[in-house]
C-alpha cells in the first residue's frame, strides 16, 4: 500500500485540530488573576442585548469603579433602545472627567428570538466575521456579557486572542435573573468557555456547581 497524499492532509488537519483544542483548553483553564493592589485600568468589552438584558448589564456596569475603563459597548444592530440607555448612564458616570471613557460598536445580531436553528448557525457565522476584527482591534482585558445572542461570537473572538497567544481575555458571564431553572442557550455554551460564570438563583447553582452564586446581583 502506497502513502496516499489525502492521508497526509488528513493527519495534518487532525494535528492542527488537536493543537487548537489543546490551546483552547489551556486558554479556558488559565484564570489569570492580576496581582492584588494592581491599579492599571481594565479595558472592558460589554455585550448588550436588548430590553431586559441591557437593563441588567447596565446595572452591573454602574456598580463598577471608574478603574474599569475604557468601556467598549457592543450592541446588536437591530437594537434601537440600548444606545440611548448607554449614553444616559455614561453621562451620569462622567460627572468629573471631561474625556468620555466609552465607545459604542454595532455588530449583526447572531440570533433573533425564536429564530430557527439552521438559520441561527448562518447568522452566527456572519456575526463571528464581524466580531473577530472588532475584538482584535479593541483587545479588551475583560468581556462581560449576560446572554444575548451576540455574546457567543464575541466571546469566541475573545478566546481566539488567547488561542493565538495575543492576550488572555477574562470572560465574565452573568446569567440573566430571568433564568431560574434552566440556562439560556448562550449560558449553556459559555458555562464551559467563560472564566467566571455567575447565576442569580440557588436552583441554578445546584445544577451547575462551577457557577458563582452571590444572590441577586441586579
Amino acid at each position: 500500500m502506497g502513502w496516499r497524499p489525502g492521508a497526509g492532509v488528513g493527519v495534518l488537519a487532525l494535528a492542527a485540530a488537536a493543537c487548537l483544542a489543546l490551546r483552547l483548553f489551556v486558554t479556558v483553564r488559565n484564570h489569570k488573576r492580576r496581582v492584588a493592589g494592581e491599579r492599571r485600568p481594565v479595558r472592558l468589552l460589554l455585550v448588550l442585548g436588548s430590553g431586559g438584558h441591557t437593563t441588567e448589564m447596565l446595572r452591573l456596569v454602574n456598580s463598577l469603579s471608574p478603574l474599569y475603563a475604557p468601556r467598549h459597548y457592543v450592541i446588536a444592530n437591530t437594537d434601537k433602545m440600548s444606545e440611548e440607555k448607554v449614553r444616559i448612564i455614561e453621562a451620569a458616570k462622567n460627572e468629573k472627567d471631561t474625556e468620555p471613557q466609552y465607545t459604542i460598536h454595532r455588530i449583526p445580531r447572531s440570533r433573533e428570538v425564536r429564530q430557527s436553528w439552521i438559520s441561527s448557525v448562518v447568522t452566527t457565522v456572519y456575526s463571528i466575521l464581524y466580531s473577530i476584527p472588532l475584538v482584535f482591534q479593541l483587545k479588551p482585558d475583560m468581556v462581560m456579557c449576560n446572554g444575548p445572542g451576540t455574546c457567543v461570537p464575541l466571546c469566541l473572538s475573545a478566546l481566539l486572542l488567547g488561542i493565538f497567544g495575543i492576550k488572555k481575555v477574562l470572560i465574565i458571564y452573568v446569567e440573566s435573573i430571568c433564568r431560574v431553572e434552566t440556562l439560556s442557550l448562550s449560558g449553556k455554551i459559555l458555562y464551559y468557555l467563560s472564566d467566571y460564570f455567575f447565576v442569580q438563583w440557588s436552583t441554578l447553582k445546584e445544577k451547575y456547581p462551577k457557577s458563582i452564586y452571590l444572590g441577586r446581583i441586579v
Partner: protein
Amino acid sequence: MQRLLLLLLLSSSSLQVAPPPPAATRGERLVGRSGSAAARSLGERGWSAASRTPSRAGARVPAGEAMDSVFVTVGTTSFDQLIECVSSDAVTRILQTLGCRKLTLQVGRGSVEPKAFTGPSFTLDVFRFKESIAEDIQSAGLVISHAGAGSCLEALGAGKPLIVVINENLMDNHQLELAKRLHRDGHLLYCTCSTLPETLRSLDFASLEPFPPGHPEKFANFVDRIVGFQ
C-alpha cells in the same frame, strides 16, 4: 415582629376605606406561612386567597396605596385575551369598586385595541408602545402584567403590587420561570384570564412580600478581587 407591625399599620390605613379582614385571620396566616415551607409552594398563593374569601359582596380594598389608577401591560408581545378580559364590563366594574378611576392599557402588538374614553367617574387610556412605561408604572396603584420578566421586574422594582396573568397558550415559555418563582416567593399574585375577576375581588396586598433590590456591589467586589483592585 417588624412584619407584624407593618401589617397592623397597613391594615389600619385601609380601615378608612373598608373594613379590613379580622386581625386574627391575618395573624394566623402569617404564622401559617412562616411555619410551613410547603405552604409556599406554587399555586398556594393567589388561588388560595380567592378560595378563602367566599363572600363576593364587596372586594377587599388593598392595604396601603390607593388604587386610583391601574396599569395593564403586555410588554413587546401581544396578549389579546388579557386586554379583552381586563377591559370587559365585568372586570372594569370590579376595578371601580376597588376605587379605580383610571385604567391604562398597554396593548403591544395585539389585535384587540379597546376605544379610549373619559367618563365622569372612569377613564380608559389605551396605547400600543412607549419609549418607557416607567411613568405609567410609577403612577399606578396596581399593575396587571403578562408574565414577561422585564415587566415583572420593573413593576416590583417600583414597589408596586403586581398581578401576573398567565397566557395559557404560551405555557412552555421560559419567561414564565421567573414569574412562577417570584410568585412562589410571595412577591406577586398569579392568575389566568379566567380567574382574574376572582383574584381582583379578593385582593390582599398585605400578603405580598416586598421585593428588595439586588446587590450589584457584591458583583463589583468579586470582580475587583479578580483583577486585583482589592
